[in-house]
C-alpha cells in the first residue's frame, strides 16, 4: 500500500490556537493541529505532554478555553461527546469503552440502536455490523459476546463501530498498547485500509516503529505545546529528540557479563497446568530472562502457576535448590517470589491510597517475616521513603494519592514494594505498558540493578524490541509450551517466527 503524500486529501479537522487550563495549570497552550482526509497523522509526546487533553477536546469531552475547532473549514463546537460523534469524529480510547456482557452488534450500535415501531431492529444491527466487520476483514460473529473476545478482537469491534458511524476522523489512542506483534500487524493493515478509504486518522503512540510504519505527518507535543511538526517522515531520532528534548543514547542497560551470572535460582522441570505442558527452564542469579509469545501462548499462565495462582498438575519447581510448591501468592512471596502485574490499575495498585501506602503494602503484609529476617528496618516508612527516593519516584509528596502519578512512577512504586522484601525471583509482566519513553529506560535500569544484586528476573513482554534490548536470554512460548530460545540481541523476525509457528513472520 502506498502512503498518501501529505496535502493530497482535503483538510478534515483543524485546531487553531487551542488552549486549555485546569485549575490554573496550562494543559495545552496555543496548539495548532490539522489532519487531512486519507492520511495517518501521528501525534506523539510523553505522558503529560497534553495528548489526552487534545483528544478530549477533539471528542467533545472538554471545551477549549481559547482557540477554534474547524471541520472542513467550518467552525464547530462540541458540547457533548455525542456532538463529536454526529459530526463524524470517533475516538478509540486506550481503555476500551465496550460492554463485555453485550454482543458485538449491540456494542457497535451502543446508544443509537435502530428501532422499527419502537422495537429494536436486531436484524438491521446484525447486518450493518457484519458489513463493517467485513470491510475490516475481521472474521467476528456479530452475535458473539464481547467479553469472550480477545483484546485485539475487541479493538476491531471499536473500529467497526467507527466505520458504521461513517467516521470522517478516527482518533486512536495508543491502539497497540495491549496488542502483541501479530495483532499489531493486523491493526496496521486496518489503519491503512481506513486511510485508503479517505478517513483522517489521528494516531497517538509512543512507539517510533509505528510512526515510521504508518504516519504521513507527525506532530510532537511537549509540555502542552507543539514542539515540532513534520510534514514528511523524519528520522526516529529526530522525533525522540523533539519529544524528550534530548537524545536517548543508552536506552537499554547493557546485558549481563558472564561473570555477573550466578547459580541457578529457579529451576522448573516438566511443569504442566490446565493450559501449560512440559515447561522446563532455569533462571540464574543476575540474569534477566525474557518471555516472548502471542497473547494466550501461556506466558501469563506460567507466571500465575509459579506464583501459586493456578494449580500445577505435573512437574517440579525448585528455588535455590530446594523443591517448592506454592499454593497461594502469599506462600510464593514468603518463599522469595515477587510479581509485577501487567494490569497495574486493576491488579497492582490501591489507586486511592498514597504513594507511601502503596509502597509499603508488601512490607506491612509480611511484617512478621521481615522481623524474623531482621536484616534492616524494612517495614518502616523511612525505609520505603528512602527506597522511593533512590528509585527517583516523582510525586508532589509520598502522601499523594498514587492515581495522580504517571505510569512510570506507579511502576517504580510497585517495584519499591517488592524491593522491601528482597525477593529472589521477580516476575515482570508487561513492565513498561503505558509508561512513556523516557521513564522506560529508568525501569530497564532498575531491573538490571536488581539482577546485579543477585535476583533472577523473569520478564514477560509483548514489546519485542524491549525484550531483545533488555533481556539476556529470550524464551519463546507457543500453545502452552516453550518452543525456542534466543540469546541477547536476537533478530525480531526469528522470534516472531517461533512465536507464531509460521514459516514466514507475520509482521
Amino acid at each position, binding site marked *: 500500500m502506498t502512503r498518501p503524500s501529505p496535502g493530497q486529501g482535503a483538510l478534515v479537522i483543524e485546531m487553531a490556537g487551542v488552549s486549555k487550563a485546569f485549575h490554573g495549570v496550562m494543559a495545552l497552550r496555543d496548539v495548532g493541529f490539522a489532519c487531512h482526509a486519507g492520511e495517518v497523522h501521528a501525534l506523539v509526546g510523553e505522558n503529560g505532554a497534553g495528548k489526552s487533553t487534545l483528544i478530549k477536546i477533539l*471528542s467533545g*469531552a472538554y471545551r477549549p478555553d481559547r482557540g477554534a475547532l474547524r471541520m472542513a473549514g467550518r467552525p464547530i463546537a462540541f458540547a*457533548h*461527546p*455525542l456532538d463529536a*460523534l454526529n459530526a463524524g469524529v470517533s475516538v478509540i*480510547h486506550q481503555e476500551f*469503552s*465496550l*460492554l*463485555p*456482557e*453485550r454482543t458485538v452488534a*449491540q456494542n457497535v450500535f*451502543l*446508544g*443509537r*440502536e435502530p*428501532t422499527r415501531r*419502537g*422495537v*429494536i431492529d436486531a436484524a438491521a444491527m446484525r447486518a450493518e455490523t457484519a458489513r463493517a466487520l467485513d470491510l475490516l476483514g475481521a472474521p467476528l460473529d456479530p452475535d458473539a*459476546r464481547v467479553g*469472550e473476545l480477545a483484546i485485539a478482537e475487541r479493538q476491531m469491534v471499536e473500529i467497526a463501530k467507527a466505520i458504521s458511524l461513517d467516521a470522517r476522523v478516527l482518533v486512536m489512542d495508543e491502539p497497540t498498547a495491549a496488542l502483541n506483534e501479530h495483532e499489531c500487524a493486523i491493526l496496521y493493515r486496518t489503519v491503512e485500509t481506513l486511510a485508503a478509504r479517505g478517513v483522517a486518522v489521528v494516531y497517538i503512540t509512543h512507539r517510533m516503529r509505528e510512526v515510521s510504519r504508518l504516519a504521513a505527518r507527525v506532530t510532537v507535543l511537549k509540555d502542552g505545546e507543539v514542539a515540532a511538526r513534520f510534514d514528511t517522515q523524519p528520522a526516529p531520532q529526530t522525533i525522540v529528540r523533539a519529544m524528550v528534548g534530548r537524545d536517548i543514547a543508552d536506552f537499554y542497560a547493557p546485558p549481563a557479563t558472564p561473570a555477573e551470572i550466578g547459580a541457578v535460582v529457579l529451576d522448573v522441570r516438566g511443569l504442566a497446568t490446565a*493450559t501449560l505442558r512440559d515447561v522446563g527452564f532455569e533462571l540464574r542469579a543476575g540474569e534477566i530472562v525474557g518471555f516472548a509469545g502471542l497473547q*494466550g501462548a501461556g506466558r501469563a499462565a506460567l507466571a500465575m502457576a509459579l506464583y501459586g495462582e*493456578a494449580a500445577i498438575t505435573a512437574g517440579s519447581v525448585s528455588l535455590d535448590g530446594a523443591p517448592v510448591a506454592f499454593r497461594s501468592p502469599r506462600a510464593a512471596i514468603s518463599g522469595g517470589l515477587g510479581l509485577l502485574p501487567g494490569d497495574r490499575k486493576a491488579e497492582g495498585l490501591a489507586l486511592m491510597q498514597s504513594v507511601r501506602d502503596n509502597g509499603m503494602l508488601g512490607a506491612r503484609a509480611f511484617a512478621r517475616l521481615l522481623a524474623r529476617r531482621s536484616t534492616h528496618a524494612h517495614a518502616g516508612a523511612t525505609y520505603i521513603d528512602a527506597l522511593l527516593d533512590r528509585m527517583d519516584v516523582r510525586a508532589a509528596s509520598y502522601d499523594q494519592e498514587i492515581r495522580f502519578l504517571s505510569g512510570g512512577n506507579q511502576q517504580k512504586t510497585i517495584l519499591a514494594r517488592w524491593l522491601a522484601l528482597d525477593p529472589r525471583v521477580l516476575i515482570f509482566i508487561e513492565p513498561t505498558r503505558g509508561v512513556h519513553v523516557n521513564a522506560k529506560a529508568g525501569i530497564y535500569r532498575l531491573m538490571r540493578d536488581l539482577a546485579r544484586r543477585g535476583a533472577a528476573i523473569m520478564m514477560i513482554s509483548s514489546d519485542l524490541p524491549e525484550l531483545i534490548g533488555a533481556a539476556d536470554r529470550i524464551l519463546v512460548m507457543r*500453545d502452552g509450551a516453550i518452543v525456542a530460545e534466543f540469546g541477547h540481541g536476537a533478530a525480531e523476525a526469528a522470534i516472531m517466527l517461533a512465536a507464531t509457528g509460521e514459516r514466514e513472520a507475520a509482521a
Partner: protein
Amino acid sequence: MTAVVARARAGLRFERWAPALLLGGAVGLYVGIALLTGQSQYLTPDNAVAILGRSIALGITAIGQTFAILVASIDLSVASLISASAVLASVVMNGEPRMILPAIVAVLALGALVGLVNGLIITKLEVNPLIATLGMALIIQGGLSAFVSNFAGAVPEAFLVFAYGAIAGVPLSLVFLLALAAVAGFVLRFTRFGSDIYSVGGNRDAARLAGLRTDRVVIGAHVVCSLCAAIAGLYLASRLRSGAPWIGSDGVYDLESIAVVVIGGTLLAGGRGGVWGTMGGVLIFSLIDATFNLAGVDAFAKQVLRGVVIVAAVAFYAVRSRRLVA
C-alpha cells in the same frame, strides 16, 4: 486458546441456565418432601397455583427491582412505598366504588414521584443508591406513621377482584403478574429503553461516552421500580381489604425483592440478567417456603434456612463466574 474459549462458552451457557437448575432443585425438593412425609395431596395443580398466589406482591415488586439492579442501582424504599400505596389506596377509596379509579391514579402518581425523586437524588446529587433509597424509605415510613397508625380506610367490594378474582380457575392476580413480567421482559429485550438499561448498567462511563443520556436511563429504571412497588401496594390493599403502615415492612419486600432478583441470576453489579430469572427466583422462594411448611419447620428455623438459601445461591453464581476467569 481455543480450549479456553470453549470452556468460557460452556460456562456461560451454564450461567444462563443456572436459575432453571436452581428452580428444578427447588421443585424436586418440594416434591421429595411431600412424598417422604406422605402429603401427596399437596402435589396438585391447584396447590401449585396457591403456592404462586402467595408471592404475587413479591413478584410485582421484584420485577421493578430487576430494573433498578440491572442499571447498577438498587432500591431499598420499596417496602415503605408499598405500605404508603396500600394506605393511600384504601383511604382514597374509603369503600366507595367510584373512587377506585382516582385512587389507582393517585397511587401510580405517588409511585412515579418517589421513583423520580430517587432517580434524581442518585444521578444529580450523586448520592449512593443504597443510602438515597434508604433515606427515602425512612422519609416515607416516618411520614406515613405520622398520619396513620393502624388499618385506615377500606377498599370497596369491587376492588377485591384484583386479589380474589379468577379467570378460568386461575387467579386474576397471577395472570396480572405474568402479564406484567411479559411486558417488562419485552421492554428489556426489544426496546431502546431496555437496551439502554443494560448498557448503562454494564458500564456507565462507556455508555455516556457513546452518547447515552445515562441519568435519564437510571431515573427511568427507578420510576419503573417504584411504579411496580406502588402496584404491589394496590394488590395488598385489595388482598387485606385495607391498608396499614406496616404491611410493606412486615413482608420484608425490600430485602426479599433484592434476594429473588439475585437468585434469579441478575448481576448485583448490573448489566446482566432479566425479568424471567427474577420470576424463577420468586418461584424458588415460594417453593422453599412451601417445602418448609410441609416439613413442619418452625418459623425461626425457617428464617435461618432462608438466609442460608440466599447466601448459597449467590455463592453458587460467584464460584461459577470465578471458574470462568481461571
